[in-house]
């Protein structure tokens, strides 16, 4: 049966944000998702709070927004509600794409039917997937627009990775990556990118074959960097680490929205060549952050990621202005031109304090406000 794409208002915005739960004694992960969700359910808040694959993760799903400022307000409010309950439970919350020193084998799968089946299907990869990402949904007025945007935004995946990068430490060591989280995602057999299809009909034909082979049961089985989300009527960008603050999470969403606005407006021609360089460019962003270099397949040249990001910010600024997202672009411009991303902040804290537990304590304090 073909997938039906439910259209939504173009450029509407929503965010999924996975957060880590910590105990305040040794700053390791705490398996308290169930209790936190139970307590938070007693409060009024927009959007949804959900469990994730293991019991030390919770996910914030925002409601649908048209502009960055309202999204930021909602994220701050939800963060405050969660932080209040967490403090009452003697646990803490934090952003960050990975927990710096948790041992994946100690994690416990959250006992829902879906998560248990993921665990059964993927074995140890399931517990290793205790990593924390931000997904950004951009509304699309038609299914074909969603296919266009999925391809078009792929060129900017490295930019989004570098801005959000907040996982330099993993399993107790400095990985030398700014974002080590995506290496964990790479292990899944259906990770990567959407195939080069040009329309929703072509996509449906591809999906039917994959479904017919028994490889996928639903769109959720594709762990792609960017994928259409037909039931929401959106394109879902899935490459961002959860930043260290909800402010940065909202800034990323504001940037993605302005970028989508610019892409829809300019309609740059698409070429399958973007996927030739994608893995290399993505690696550069994960490994080096803003200091990475990119291969631009449109004119076959190498360009610095920071330089290309600054240029992109200039291109999309008029659209950001129209959408009320200019402050988000200002903050990102400040990060790329000197302040650095969250990975740099985490490394600086480690240099200063000398223990990863101290780093987690400080990142939690920053997140909870």
């Amino acid at each position, binding site marked *: 049966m073909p997938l039906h794409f439910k259209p939504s208002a173009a450029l509407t915005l929503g965010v999924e944000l996975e957060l880590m739960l910590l*105990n305040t004694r040794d700053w390791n992960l705490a398996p*308290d998702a169930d*209790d936190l969700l139970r307590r938070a359910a007693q409060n009024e808040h927009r959007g949804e709070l959900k469990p994730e694959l293991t019991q030390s993760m919770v996910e914030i799903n925002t409601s649908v927004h048209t502009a960055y400022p309202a999204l930021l307000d909602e994220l701050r409010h939800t963060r405050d509600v969660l932080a209040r309950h967490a403090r009452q*439970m003697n646990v803490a919350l934090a952003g960050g794409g990975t927990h710096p020193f948790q041992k994946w084998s*100690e994690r416990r799968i959250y006992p829902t039917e879906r998560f248990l089946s993921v665990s059964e299907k993927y074995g140890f990869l399931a517990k290793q997937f205790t990593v924390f990402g931000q997904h950004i949904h951009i509304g699309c007025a038609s299914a074909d627009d969603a296919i266009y945007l999925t391809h078009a935004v792929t060129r900017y995946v490295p930019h989004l990775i570098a801005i959000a990068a907040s996982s330099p430490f993993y399993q107790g060591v400095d990985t030398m990556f700014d974002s080590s989280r995506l290496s964990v995602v790479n292990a899944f057999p259906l990770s990567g990118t959407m195939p080069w299809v040009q329309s929703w009909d072509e996509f449906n034909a591809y999906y039917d074959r994959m479904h017919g082979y028994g490889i996928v049961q639903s769109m959720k089985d594709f762990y792609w960097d960017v994928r259409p989300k037909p039931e929401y009527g959106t394109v879902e960008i899935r490459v961002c680490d959860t930043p260290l603050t909800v402010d940065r999470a909202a800034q990323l969403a504001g940037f993605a929205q302005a970028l989508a606005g610019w892409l829809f407006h300019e309609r740059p021609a698409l070429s399958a060549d973007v996927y030739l360089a994608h893995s290399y460019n993505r690696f550069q962003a994960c490994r080096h952050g803003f200091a990475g270099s990119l291969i631009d397949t449109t004119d076959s040249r190498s360009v610095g990621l920071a330089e290309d990001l600054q240029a992109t910010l200039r291109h999309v600024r008029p659209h950001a202005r129209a959408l009320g997202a200019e402050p988000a672009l200002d903050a990102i411009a400040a990060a790329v031109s000197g302040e650095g991303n969250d990975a740099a902040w985490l490394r600086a804290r480690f240099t200063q304090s000398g223990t990863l*537990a101290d780093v987690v304590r400080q990142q939690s304090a920053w997140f909870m406000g």
Partner: protein
Amino acid sequence: MTTPEFLPSWPLPANSFALFGLLLLAGVVGGRVAATTRILPAITGYIATGFLLGPGVLNWLDERALADARIFADVSLGIIVFELGRRLDIEWARHDRWLLPTGLAESLVSFAAMAGLLIGLGIDALEAAMMATFGVATAPAVVLLVTRELRADGPVTRRTLWYVALNNIIGILGLVVLLPFVEARATGTPWTPAARSLWLLAGSFLLGYVAYLVMTQIARVVGKATAPQFILTVSMIIVTVGAAQMLRLSVLLALLVLGICAHNLDRHHRLIDVRFGDAAELFFVALFVVTGATLRPAQFTQLAWIGIAFVVARFAGKALALIVLRRPAHITGRQATTVALALTPISGLAIGLTQPIFDVAPEFGARLAAIVAAGIAILHVLGPVATRFALLRAGEGEAEARN
């Protein structure tokens, strides 16, 4: 024919190292046997091993050997009580306004239930209060070790350990306050016992605090690397245990205060949360084998029914308080009952504090020892099982974690 001088004399002299090694070997076998039942925690195996080897049954571990082994048990108790103190996060009570009231309630209602039962059985009110005060404190070693064995973590585990720390403080304070009254009744003067209580209380608090200050100053020098911090922590625990014994203070209280200060006062984060790991397990095995060896078969038969009633009243008090206060405390009914069940093991640690009673009021001392010891003996068997069951029931431990 005379024995050559290079050969050892017979019987072989007692040797602490050999004794420690044998305790561990016997304990680890007992622990494995218990673990294979899939119902009993390893601790029950350690205790049963000690009971069998001790003076109560086979007498292979006689009183002298037990006295030699005591040093290992004291070090491991020091580690456990310090660890427990670190779990008493005062900041938590600031954010959860019902945490302290529910903790006080579980202690006081269980005290009232136990005292009421004993008074109902015709025991004098002051004696009943003294015995019930014993019952307030939960055995920190049992709860912490079961937690470690199951790798338990979560809201029930965290709350249980916080209450254990609190009810141990309440238990000690209660005993220290009641002791002068008991002694005054026997000797006519409350002043010497009162002064002793004050010395014990103030001295233990001060010792714990001073040990914390010294520890943080040394931490400035040694830095935050794991190995030096581990040595610093264990050394400070051993020094504080020794100092408390020399000064005739409460080892329990001093180490608890050291742990509480290390967690709550270290504003510059100079101390790291050292994981004691498998090396500390050696000491814990020794502790429970020695604990088992102090049990006597008679404790399970004499006054056993009072002991059982005492244990039931204690659990009922703790469960009632937590269930009644579950709504304001924002905990579920299941969390309330599993916390109460996890708090089942009674602590025998404070028994040392009552030594003066045996000197001035030996009859009361004997009654106290008989009833409280019966309760403690029963809970040495049931307590670890109850705590294990509670944490597994709460979904916070893994039954196979250490198997």
